[in-house]
């Protein structure tokens, strides 16, 4: 596992319609330790997606550095796994082949990558869906596939951009609980983007609050694990932490 560092990261877009430059990210510095789960919250338009897309390598950055174990990253790569809000599963591949895609790209033979895929599907309670196509699954199940597809590739960092925003509230809570459970089992490094304060606190070791392209503040979350909603909705410490983060976001 490797340390991820953002150093004075900045991004300026050129908006061809307005004919003007828009600075989405001004100056963001952040160090993420191996095995850390970081939530990034902030009001919409504060640059969350832009930061994540730069780390993923989908868009170039305008200034600063993104370092993985001290080495600068440019362009997408398998050491940075991504979970998309729109799931982004390959519609022409079965669930098994979607999850086995990363290993396939590494040249892992068919039998072995099927074994890996099955192991990860079991982790998400999806063994029964291995031979189905994505369009045959509910949104919640599709995103479970999205998460394990990224994990099955053993990335150094897992990047998630509001991955649960498009599923219903009940399913979202289940997915959040599953994600904390999987994280505890595998301890991947996670950067989780959300605008949902409770979600950010529930999942993370550390919540970073973003405002207008800058880091406003950050707060450690020392809640014990495993975390389940039934306990935390009544937990005073959880409520306090959430209230503090909410204050920061609203001040942002």
């Amino acid at each position, binding site marked *: 596992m490797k340390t991820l560092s953002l150093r004075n990261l900045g991004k300026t877009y050129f908006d061809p319609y307005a004919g003007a430059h828009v600075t989405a990210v001004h100056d963001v510095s952040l160090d993420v330790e191996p095995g850390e789960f970081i939530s990034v919250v902030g009001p919409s338009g504060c640059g969350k997606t832009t930061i994540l897309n730069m780390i993923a390598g989908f868009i170039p950055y305008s200034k600063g550095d993104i370092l993985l174990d001290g080495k600068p990253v440019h362009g997408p790569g398998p050491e940075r796994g991504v979970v998309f809000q729109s799931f*982004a599963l390959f519609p022409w591949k079965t669930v098994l082949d979607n999850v086995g895609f990363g290993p396939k790209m590494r040249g892992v033979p068919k039998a072995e990558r099927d074994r890996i895929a099955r192991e990860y599907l079991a982790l998400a309670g999806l063994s029964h869906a291995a031979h189905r196509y994505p369009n*045959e699954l509910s949104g919640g199940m599709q995103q479970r596939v999205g998460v394990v597809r990224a994990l099955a590739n053993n990335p150094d960092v897992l990047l998630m951009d509001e991955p649960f925003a498009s599923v219903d509230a009940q399913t979202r809570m289940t997915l959040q609980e599953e994600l904390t459970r999987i994280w505890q089992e595998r301890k991947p490094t996670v950067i989780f983007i959300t605008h949902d304060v409770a979600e950010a606190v529930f999942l993370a070791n550390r919540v970073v609050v973003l405002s207008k392209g800058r880091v406003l503040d950050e707060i450690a979350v020392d809640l014990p694990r495993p975390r389940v909603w039934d306990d935390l909705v009544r937990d005073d410490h959880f409520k306090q932490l959430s209230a503090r983060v909410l204050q920061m976001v609203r001040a942002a």
Partner: protein
Amino acid sequence: MQVTGSLKGRSSRLIRSVNSLVGAAMFVAPLLALLAIWAIVVPLFNVNPRVFPSVGAVGAAALDSIRDGTLFAHVGASLLRVGLGTLIGIATAVPLGIAMGVSPTVAAFLTPLFRFFSVLAGIAWIPIATLWFGYGFGAIVFVIFNAVFFVVAYNTLLGVRTIPHTLRNAAASLGAGRWALLTEVLLPGALPNIVTGIRTGLGFAWRGLIAAEMIATNVGLGYMLFVARDFYRTEVIVFGMIVIGVLWLLIDRLLLVPLERATIERWGMVRRA
């Protein structure tokens, strides 16, 4: 749960097969009605066989051509030309369509040419094709190729453009290189459109084929019609027209429609208007 599930499956399969039988019957009924009118009208008005043949004469012509093997020679020649022209068309159009789909520069440069040449696609090329390839196989295959090429390339371009960009990003962040991006994302993602393009292109090609064979060859279904005309053999002409129509329906229904369905519906990629 299990039982109701399988019962449900069985009854829906039953409904589907009943539906397809009804569909087939509704497809055939008007054709049978036309046949009945033909069988009644021609003897009733004592139509001159040089103007239009009787059902019996066409049946006899059909039997003759089957018995002496000329039908199979014509059909075989036509199918070979269509098959070869289509294959060459697909093999060249798909790579070009993908290149256009991934590169806006290539697309911008080629689009005006495509607009221009897709108007000309098909039979307008027959005269110059015969100058280039001589009368016969090469000229006809070229005309078929031409009819397929532009439609398939354009549909491939559309297909690549409809692939959500996040899918390319997903593949890249899972370690896909350029080649894997092509084979694992762009080709399968564009496939439903490519198949639609092939279906449309083959429709043009089939019409082009008949026209080209009337001019540029001495075997094939188009030639069969054209020669029969010289001898006032209306029963051969009408029989040939029936073969051309039926063959196309068979190719379309038994090959192209199932192919389209397999790719589009399976993946839930139907883009209903």
